[in-house]
Protein backbone atom coordinates (compact mmCIF):
# COMPACT_ATOMS: atom_id res chain seq x y z
CA UNK A 1 0.00 0.00 0.00
CA UNK A 2 2.91 2.36 0.77
CA UNK A 3 4.42 1.59 -2.63
CA UNK A 4 1.15 2.61 -4.27
CA UNK A 5 1.19 5.83 -2.24
CA UNK A 6 4.77 6.54 -3.37
CA UNK A 7 3.74 6.14 -7.01
CA UNK A 8 0.89 8.65 -6.57
CA UNK A 9 3.07 11.41 -5.06
CA UNK A 10 4.74 13.97 -7.30
CA UNK A 11 6.49 16.28 -4.77
CA UNK A 12 9.85 15.50 -3.19
CA UNK A 13 8.87 15.97 0.51
CA UNK A 14 6.14 13.27 0.66
CA UNK A 15 8.29 11.03 -1.52
CA UNK A 16 11.24 11.31 0.88
CA UNK A 17 8.99 10.42 3.83
CA UNK A 18 7.46 7.39 2.05
CA UNK A 19 10.87 6.18 0.87
CA UNK A 20 12.16 6.36 4.46
CA UNK A 21 9.15 4.28 5.61
CA UNK A 22 9.71 1.60 2.95
CA UNK A 23 13.46 1.49 3.62
CA UNK A 24 12.79 1.30 7.37
CA UNK A 25 10.40 -1.64 7.01
CA UNK A 26 12.91 -3.52 4.86
CA UNK A 27 15.81 -2.92 7.24
CA UNK A 28 13.76 -3.79 10.33
CA UNK A 29 12.92 -7.15 8.73
CA UNK A 30 16.52 -7.81 7.69
CA UNK A 31 18.01 -6.86 11.07
CA UNK A 32 15.29 -8.41 13.25
CA UNK A 33 14.60 -5.04 14.92
CA UNK A 34 11.29 -3.37 15.80
CA UNK A 35 9.90 -1.19 12.98
CA UNK A 36 9.09 1.55 15.49
CA UNK A 37 10.50 2.40 18.91
CA UNK A 38 7.01 2.53 20.39
CA UNK A 39 5.23 -0.77 20.90
CA UNK A 40 1.91 1.03 21.24
CA UNK A 41 -0.79 -0.49 23.40
CA UNK A 42 -1.63 -4.18 22.97
CA UNK A 43 -5.12 -5.59 22.60
CA UNK A 44 -5.81 -9.28 21.96
CA UNK A 45 -9.03 -10.14 20.11
CA UNK A 46 -10.16 -13.64 21.04
CA UNK A 47 -13.16 -15.36 19.49
CA UNK A 48 -14.37 -18.88 20.12
CA UNK A 49 -17.31 -21.25 19.81
CA UNK A 50 -18.69 -24.05 21.99
CA UNK A 51 -16.11 -26.54 20.73
CA UNK A 52 -13.16 -24.13 20.73
CA UNK A 53 -13.09 -22.69 24.25
CA UNK A 54 -9.65 -21.31 25.19
CA UNK A 55 -9.23 -23.93 27.97
CA UNK A 56 -6.10 -22.17 29.28
CA UNK A 57 -5.35 -18.93 31.12
CA UNK A 58 -4.82 -16.80 28.02
CA UNK A 59 -4.49 -13.62 30.08
CA UNK A 60 -1.55 -15.05 32.00
CA UNK A 61 0.12 -16.52 28.89
CA UNK A 62 -0.06 -13.26 26.91
CA UNK A 63 1.07 -11.12 29.85
CA UNK A 64 4.13 -13.35 30.30
CA UNK A 65 4.91 -13.18 26.58
CA UNK A 66 4.84 -9.37 26.68
CA UNK A 67 7.34 -9.33 29.55
CA UNK A 68 9.56 -11.81 27.69
CA UNK A 69 9.45 -9.74 24.46
CA UNK A 70 10.39 -6.66 26.49
CA UNK A 71 13.42 -8.39 28.00
CA UNK A 72 14.54 -9.33 24.46
CA UNK A 73 14.34 -5.65 23.31
CA UNK A 74 11.50 -6.42 20.92
CA UNK A 75 9.25 -4.10 22.93
CA UNK A 76 10.17 -0.90 24.75
CA UNK A 77 8.89 -0.85 28.35
CA UNK A 78 6.06 1.64 27.85
CA UNK A 79 3.22 0.61 30.20
CA UNK A 80 2.78 2.95 33.17
CA UNK A 81 0.27 3.63 35.95
CA UNK A 82 -2.49 5.89 34.56
CA UNK A 83 -1.97 8.59 37.21
CA UNK A 84 1.38 8.21 38.97
CA UNK A 85 3.10 7.33 35.61
CA UNK A 86 5.31 4.82 37.43
CA UNK A 87 6.85 2.41 34.90
CA UNK A 88 7.52 -1.13 36.19
CA UNK A 89 10.04 -1.49 33.35
CA UNK A 90 8.78 -4.70 31.75
CA UNK A 91 5.36 -3.90 30.23
CA UNK A 92 3.56 -5.68 33.04
CA UNK A 93 0.51 -4.01 34.55
CA UNK A 94 -3.18 -4.21 35.33
CA UNK A 95 -5.19 -4.85 32.17
CA UNK A 96 -2.10 -5.43 30.00
CA UNK A 97 -2.65 -6.67 27.41
CA UNK A 98 -6.26 -5.66 26.99
CA UNK A 99 -8.58 -8.52 25.94
CA UNK A 100 -11.73 -8.47 23.86
CA UNK A 101 -13.53 -11.81 24.02
CA UNK A 102 -16.19 -12.72 21.50
CA UNK A 103 -18.39 -15.81 21.76
CA UNK A 104 -19.69 -17.05 18.41
CA UNK A 105 -21.87 -20.15 18.77
CA UNK A 106 -20.94 -22.59 16.01
CA UNK A 107 -17.42 -21.21 15.36
CA UNK A 108 -15.24 -24.30 15.15
CA UNK A 109 -11.86 -22.61 15.76
CA UNK A 110 -10.29 -20.45 18.47
CA UNK A 111 -9.06 -17.21 16.94
CA UNK A 112 -6.54 -14.83 18.50
CA UNK A 113 -5.44 -11.57 16.90
CA UNK A 114 -2.91 -9.41 18.73
CA UNK A 115 -2.76 -5.76 17.71
CA UNK A 116 -0.10 -3.27 18.88
CA UNK A 117 -1.55 0.14 18.10
CA UNK A 118 0.61 3.24 18.46
CA UNK A 119 -0.47 5.92 20.92
CA UNK A 120 0.51 9.10 19.10
CA UNK A 121 -2.38 8.03 16.90
CA UNK A 122 -4.62 7.95 19.98
CA UNK A 123 -4.12 11.71 20.42
CA UNK A 124 -6.08 12.25 17.21
CA UNK A 125 -9.08 10.06 18.16
CA UNK A 126 -12.58 11.52 18.53
CA UNK A 127 -15.97 10.44 19.81
CA UNK A 128 -19.28 12.18 19.47
CA UNK A 129 -22.85 11.40 20.31
CA UNK A 130 -24.60 12.87 17.26
CA UNK A 131 -28.27 13.70 17.18
CA UNK A 132 -30.42 12.93 14.17
CA UNK A 133 -30.39 16.62 13.15
CA UNK A 134 -26.58 16.84 13.35
CA UNK A 135 -26.09 13.77 11.13
CA UNK A 136 -27.69 15.80 8.31
CA UNK A 137 -29.33 12.71 6.86
CA UNK A 138 -31.16 14.89 4.31
CA UNK A 139 -27.77 15.95 2.90
CA UNK A 140 -26.46 12.39 2.58
CA UNK A 141 -24.98 12.50 6.11
CA UNK A 142 -22.87 15.62 5.43
CA UNK A 143 -22.73 16.34 9.19
CA UNK A 144 -21.08 13.04 9.96
CA UNK A 145 -18.71 13.24 6.97
CA UNK A 146 -17.64 16.82 7.76
CA UNK A 147 -16.81 15.71 11.30
CA UNK A 148 -14.70 12.80 10.01
CA UNK A 149 -12.69 15.10 7.72
CA UNK A 150 -12.38 17.70 10.47
CA UNK A 151 -11.02 15.03 12.82
CA UNK A 152 -8.43 13.94 10.25
CA UNK A 153 -7.45 17.59 9.65
CA UNK A 154 -7.04 18.22 13.39
CA UNK A 155 -5.00 15.02 13.63
CA UNK A 156 -2.58 16.37 11.03
CA UNK A 157 0.82 14.72 11.39
CA UNK A 158 0.14 13.37 14.90
CA UNK A 159 -1.16 9.87 14.01
CA UNK A 160 1.83 9.00 11.74
CA UNK A 161 0.14 9.36 8.36
CA UNK A 162 -0.41 7.75 5.94
CA UNK A 163 -2.66 6.33 8.65
CA UNK A 164 -5.85 4.28 8.68
CA UNK A 165 -9.04 5.02 10.60
CA UNK A 166 -11.71 2.84 12.08
CA UNK A 167 -15.18 4.37 12.44
CA UNK A 168 -17.61 2.80 14.88
CA UNK A 169 -21.30 3.69 14.61
CA UNK A 170 -24.16 2.90 16.96
CA UNK A 171 -24.59 1.37 20.41
CA UNK A 172 -23.53 3.77 23.14
CA UNK A 173 -20.18 5.51 23.68
CA UNK A 174 -18.33 2.35 24.75
CA UNK A 175 -19.76 0.26 21.91
CA UNK A 176 -18.89 2.75 19.16
CA UNK A 177 -15.32 3.17 20.49
CA UNK A 178 -14.67 -0.56 20.65
CA UNK A 179 -16.09 -1.07 17.16
CA UNK A 180 -13.80 1.63 15.77
CA UNK A 181 -10.68 0.09 17.34
CA UNK A 182 -11.66 -3.39 16.21
CA UNK A 183 -12.52 -2.37 12.63
CA UNK A 184 -9.08 -0.92 11.97
CA UNK A 185 -7.27 -3.65 13.93
CA UNK A 186 -8.74 -6.93 12.67
CA UNK A 187 -9.87 -6.14 9.14
CA UNK A 188 -7.47 -6.24 6.22
CA UNK A 189 -6.91 -2.65 5.09
CA UNK A 190 -7.51 -3.58 1.44
CA UNK A 191 -10.79 -5.47 1.99
CA UNK A 192 -14.23 -4.30 0.87
CA UNK A 193 -17.02 -3.93 3.43
CA UNK A 194 -19.72 -6.58 2.75
CA UNK A 195 -22.39 -3.98 3.59
CA UNK A 196 -22.83 -1.88 0.40
CA UNK A 197 -23.81 1.28 2.31
CA UNK A 198 -20.73 1.14 4.55
CA UNK A 199 -18.55 0.14 1.57
CA UNK A 200 -19.66 3.29 -0.27
CA UNK A 201 -19.10 5.42 2.86
CA UNK A 202 -15.57 4.02 3.21
CA UNK A 203 -14.81 4.73 -0.46
CA UNK A 204 -16.15 8.29 -0.38
CA UNK A 205 -14.42 9.22 2.88
CA UNK A 206 -11.07 7.78 1.76
CA UNK A 207 -11.22 9.67 -1.54
CA UNK A 208 -12.19 12.97 0.05
CA UNK A 209 -9.74 12.73 2.97
CA UNK A 210 -6.95 12.15 0.50
CA UNK A 211 -7.93 15.32 -1.37
CA UNK A 212 -7.16 17.41 1.76
CA UNK A 213 -3.41 17.57 1.09
CA UNK A 214 -2.17 16.58 4.59
CA UNK A 215 0.03 13.79 3.23
CA UNK A 216 2.67 11.42 4.65
CA UNK A 217 4.06 12.71 8.00
CA UNK A 218 1.56 15.59 7.76
CA UNK A 219 3.95 17.74 5.74
CA UNK A 220 1.85 17.70 2.57
CA UNK A 221 0.98 15.16 -0.10
CA UNK A 222 -1.69 13.01 -1.70
CA UNK A 223 -1.96 10.07 0.70
CA UNK A 224 -3.17 10.95 4.19
CA UNK A 225 -5.05 7.69 4.83
CA UNK A 226 -4.44 4.21 3.49
CA UNK A 227 -7.81 2.90 4.63
CA UNK A 228 -11.16 3.80 6.19
CA UNK A 229 -13.00 0.94 7.95
CA UNK A 230 -16.60 1.42 9.07
CA UNK A 231 -18.55 -0.89 11.37
CA UNK A 232 -22.04 -0.27 12.64
CA UNK A 233 -24.55 -1.76 15.07
CA UNK A 234 -28.03 -0.64 16.07
CA UNK A 235 -28.47 2.16 18.55
CA UNK A 236 -31.23 3.92 20.48
CA UNK A 237 -33.61 6.14 18.53
CA UNK A 238 -32.51 9.22 20.52
CA UNK A 239 -28.81 9.08 19.61
CA UNK A 240 -26.30 8.45 16.79
CA UNK A 241 -22.94 7.62 18.44
CA UNK A 242 -19.83 7.79 16.26
CA UNK A 243 -16.20 7.12 17.17
CA UNK A 244 -12.99 7.45 15.16
CA UNK A 245 -9.78 5.65 16.06
CA UNK A 246 -6.52 6.24 14.19
CA UNK A 247 -3.92 3.64 13.37
CA UNK A 248 -0.39 4.68 12.37
CA UNK A 249 0.98 3.34 9.06
CA UNK A 250 2.67 0.36 10.74
CA UNK A 251 -0.03 -2.31 11.10
CA UNK A 252 1.71 -4.45 13.72
CA UNK A 253 -0.59 -7.37 14.24
CA UNK A 254 -0.62 -11.13 13.97
CA UNK A 255 -3.40 -13.69 14.15
CA UNK A 256 -3.90 -17.39 14.39
CA UNK A 257 -6.82 -19.83 14.19
CA UNK A 258 -6.52 -23.05 16.17
CA UNK A 259 -8.83 -25.92 15.15
CA UNK A 260 -9.92 -28.74 17.50
CA UNK A 261 -8.17 -31.30 15.24
CA UNK A 262 -4.82 -29.53 15.77
CA UNK A 263 -4.75 -27.60 12.49
CA UNK A 264 -3.38 -24.03 12.56
CA UNK A 265 -4.12 -21.19 10.20
CA UNK A 266 -2.25 -17.86 10.18
CA UNK A 267 -4.09 -14.60 9.50
CA UNK A 268 -2.46 -11.54 7.82
Amino acid sequence: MLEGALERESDETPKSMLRAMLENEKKAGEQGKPVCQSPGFPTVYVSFGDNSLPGQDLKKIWAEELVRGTKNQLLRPSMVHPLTRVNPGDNSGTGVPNFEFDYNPGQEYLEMIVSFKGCGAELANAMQIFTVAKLEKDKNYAGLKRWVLDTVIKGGGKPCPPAAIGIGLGGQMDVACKLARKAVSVRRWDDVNPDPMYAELERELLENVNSLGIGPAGTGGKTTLLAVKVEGVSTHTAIAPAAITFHCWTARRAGIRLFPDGREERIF
Partner: protein
Amino acid sequence: MAEKILNIPLSEQDVRDLRVGDVVYLKGRIFTSRDMGHFTVKKLMDEGKPLPVDFEGAAVFHAGPVVRKREDGGYDLVVIGPTTSIRMEPYHKMVADLKIRAIIGKGGLAEGSLKQFEESGQVYLQAAPGCAVVLAEGVRRIENVFFLELGVPEALWVLDAEKFGPLVVGMDAHGKSVYAEIRKEADQRNAALYG
Protein backbone atom coordinates in the same frame (compact mmCIF):
# COMPACT_ATOMS: atom_id res chain seq x y z
CA MET B 1 18.71 18.25 -3.45
CA ALA B 2 21.96 19.17 -1.62
CA GLU B 3 22.32 17.56 1.79
CA LYS B 4 22.66 20.12 4.56
CA ILE B 5 24.36 18.93 7.74
CA LEU B 6 24.18 21.19 10.80
CA ASN B 7 26.56 20.92 13.75
CA ILE B 8 25.31 20.96 17.32
CA PRO B 9 25.52 23.23 19.33
CA LEU B 10 23.46 25.32 16.93
CA SER B 11 23.76 29.08 16.76
CA GLU B 12 20.81 31.43 16.43
CA GLN B 13 22.03 32.25 12.91
CA ASP B 14 22.14 28.54 11.92
CA VAL B 15 18.48 28.32 12.78
CA ARG B 16 17.36 31.63 11.31
CA ASP B 17 18.86 30.56 7.98
CA LEU B 18 16.38 27.67 7.74
CA ARG B 19 13.03 27.88 5.97
CA VAL B 20 9.97 25.65 6.03
CA GLY B 21 10.47 22.71 3.63
CA ASP B 22 14.30 22.58 3.93
CA VAL B 23 15.72 19.09 4.51
CA VAL B 24 18.58 18.87 7.02
CA TYR B 25 20.68 16.37 8.99
CA LEU B 26 22.17 16.93 12.45
CA LYS B 27 25.63 16.07 13.77
CA GLY B 28 26.61 16.22 17.43
CA ARG B 29 24.93 15.69 20.78
CA ILE B 30 21.14 15.20 20.73
CA PHE B 31 19.07 15.04 23.94
CA THR B 32 15.82 13.07 24.11
CA SER B 33 12.98 14.40 26.24
CA ARG B 34 9.23 13.88 26.38
CA ASP B 35 6.36 14.45 28.83
CA MET B 36 7.97 13.46 32.12
CA GLY B 37 11.41 14.72 31.02
CA HIS B 38 10.04 18.21 30.37
CA PHE B 39 8.05 18.04 33.59
CA THR B 40 11.18 17.11 35.58
CA VAL B 41 13.35 19.85 34.04
CA LYS B 42 10.63 22.40 34.82
CA LYS B 43 10.46 21.18 38.42
CA LEU B 44 14.25 21.42 38.86
CA MET B 45 14.25 24.96 37.43
CA ASP B 46 11.35 26.02 39.66
CA GLU B 47 13.26 24.72 42.68
CA GLY B 48 16.46 26.45 41.55
CA LYS B 49 18.32 23.15 41.28
CA PRO B 50 21.02 22.37 38.69
CA LEU B 51 20.14 20.63 35.41
CA PRO B 52 21.99 17.48 34.32
CA VAL B 53 23.03 18.89 30.91
CA ASP B 54 23.68 22.27 29.25
CA PHE B 55 20.82 22.96 26.85
CA GLU B 56 22.33 26.04 25.16
CA GLY B 57 22.29 25.51 21.37
CA ALA B 58 20.88 22.03 21.86
CA ALA B 59 18.67 19.85 19.70
CA VAL B 60 15.97 18.14 21.75
CA PHE B 61 14.36 15.05 20.27
CA HIS B 62 10.82 14.13 21.35
CA ALA B 63 11.51 10.41 21.55
CA GLY B 64 11.99 7.39 23.75
CA PRO B 65 14.38 4.71 22.46
CA VAL B 66 14.55 0.94 22.62
CA VAL B 67 17.88 0.19 24.33
CA ARG B 68 19.99 -2.82 25.30
CA LYS B 69 21.98 -2.77 28.56
CA ARG B 70 25.57 -3.89 28.17
CA GLU B 71 27.51 -5.94 30.73
CA ASP B 72 29.66 -2.88 31.59
CA GLY B 73 26.50 -0.99 32.60
CA GLY B 74 26.35 1.20 29.48
CA TYR B 75 23.56 1.15 26.90
CA ASP B 76 23.39 0.36 23.20
CA LEU B 77 20.73 1.93 21.02
CA VAL B 78 18.45 -0.58 19.29
CA VAL B 79 15.99 1.80 17.56
CA ILE B 80 14.63 5.33 18.02
CA GLY B 81 11.94 7.45 16.37
CA PRO B 82 9.84 10.54 17.01
CA THR B 83 6.87 10.74 19.36
CA THR B 84 3.92 13.14 18.92
CA SER B 85 5.21 16.59 19.85
CA ILE B 86 2.00 18.47 20.66
CA ARG B 87 2.08 17.07 24.22
CA MET B 88 5.14 19.24 24.91
CA GLU B 89 3.49 22.47 23.66
CA PRO B 90 2.90 23.82 27.21
CA TYR B 91 6.70 24.05 27.73
CA HIS B 92 7.54 26.39 24.82
CA LYS B 93 8.64 29.26 27.06
CA MET B 94 10.90 27.02 29.14
CA VAL B 95 12.45 25.51 26.01
CA ALA B 96 13.22 29.02 24.71
CA ASP B 97 14.65 30.13 28.08
CA LEU B 98 17.02 27.16 27.98
CA LYS B 99 18.22 28.41 24.55
CA ILE B 100 17.35 25.13 22.87
CA ARG B 101 17.58 25.83 19.13
CA ALA B 102 15.99 22.80 17.46
CA ILE B 103 13.11 20.56 18.43
CA ILE B 104 12.79 17.24 16.59
CA GLY B 105 9.53 15.30 16.62
CA LYS B 106 6.43 14.53 14.64
CA GLY B 107 3.17 16.34 13.98
CA GLY B 108 4.42 19.82 14.87
CA LEU B 109 3.69 22.25 17.69
CA ALA B 110 1.02 24.94 18.01
CA GLU B 111 0.68 28.71 17.70
CA GLY B 112 2.40 29.47 21.03
CA SER B 113 5.57 27.71 19.92
CA LEU B 114 5.48 29.32 16.47
CA LYS B 115 5.45 32.82 17.99
CA GLN B 116 8.17 31.80 20.42
CA PHE B 117 10.34 30.47 17.58
CA GLU B 118 10.19 33.80 15.75
CA GLU B 119 11.03 35.72 18.89
CA SER B 120 13.79 33.44 20.19
CA GLY B 121 15.26 31.91 17.03
CA GLN B 122 14.23 28.24 17.11
CA VAL B 123 13.00 25.65 14.61
CA TYR B 124 10.89 22.51 14.57
CA LEU B 125 12.20 19.56 12.58
CA GLN B 126 9.88 16.77 11.43
CA ALA B 127 11.41 13.29 11.48
CA ALA B 128 9.98 10.47 9.37
CA PRO B 129 7.39 8.78 11.62
CA GLY B 130 7.69 5.08 12.40
CA CYS B 131 11.19 4.96 10.87
CA ALA B 132 13.08 3.96 13.98
CA VAL B 133 15.64 1.70 12.31
CA VAL B 134 16.64 4.26 9.67
CA LEU B 135 16.92 7.07 12.25
CA ALA B 136 18.97 4.94 14.65
CA GLU B 137 21.53 4.38 11.88
CA GLY B 138 22.44 8.07 12.15
CA VAL B 139 23.39 7.69 15.83
CA ARG B 140 26.91 6.50 16.70
CA ARG B 141 26.29 5.64 20.34
CA ILE B 142 24.50 6.48 23.55
CA GLU B 143 26.78 8.78 25.55
CA ASN B 144 24.86 9.06 28.78
CA VAL B 145 21.44 8.86 30.43
CA PHE B 146 19.71 10.91 33.14
CA PHE B 147 16.32 10.59 34.87
CA LEU B 148 16.30 6.82 34.24
CA GLU B 149 14.05 6.47 37.29
CA LEU B 150 11.27 7.88 35.04
CA GLY B 151 11.49 4.73 32.90
CA VAL B 152 13.28 4.08 29.61
CA PRO B 153 10.94 6.12 27.35
CA GLU B 154 10.86 9.20 29.60
CA ALA B 155 14.55 9.33 30.54
CA LEU B 156 16.88 11.99 29.10
CA TRP B 157 19.19 10.08 26.73
CA VAL B 158 22.30 11.74 25.36
CA LEU B 159 22.87 10.57 21.78
CA ASP B 160 26.05 11.06 19.79
CA ALA B 161 24.75 11.62 16.24
CA GLU B 162 26.87 11.30 13.13
CA LYS B 163 24.26 12.15 10.50
CA PHE B 164 20.79 12.21 11.96
CA GLY B 165 17.87 12.53 9.55
CA PRO B 166 16.42 13.28 7.07
CA LEU B 167 14.58 16.03 8.92
CA VAL B 168 12.13 18.42 7.25
CA VAL B 169 11.83 21.96 8.64
CA GLY B 170 8.16 21.96 9.66
CA MET B 171 8.15 25.30 11.56
CA ASP B 172 10.75 28.02 11.06
CA ALA B 173 11.91 31.15 12.89
CA HIS B 174 10.02 33.39 10.47
CA GLY B 175 6.47 32.62 11.57
CA LYS B 176 5.82 29.85 9.06
CA SER B 177 4.38 26.46 9.92
CA VAL B 178 3.77 23.84 7.26
CA TYR B 179 1.18 22.26 9.56
CA ALA B 180 -0.82 25.49 9.97
CA GLU B 181 -0.77 26.17 6.24
CA ILE B 182 -1.89 22.65 5.32
CA ARG B 183 -4.65 22.82 7.92
CA LYS B 184 -6.00 26.10 6.58
CA GLU B 185 -6.24 24.72 3.05
CA ALA B 186 -7.73 21.44 4.25
CA ASP B 187 -10.43 23.29 6.24
CA GLN B 188 -11.43 25.17 3.08
CA ARG B 189 -11.61 21.92 1.11
CA ASN B 190 -13.79 20.30 3.81
CA ALA B 191 -16.15 23.26 3.75
CA ALA B 192 -16.39 23.01 -0.06
CA LEU B 193 -17.19 19.28 0.15
CA TYR B 194 -19.64 19.13 3.04
CA GLY B 195 -20.72 22.70 3.74
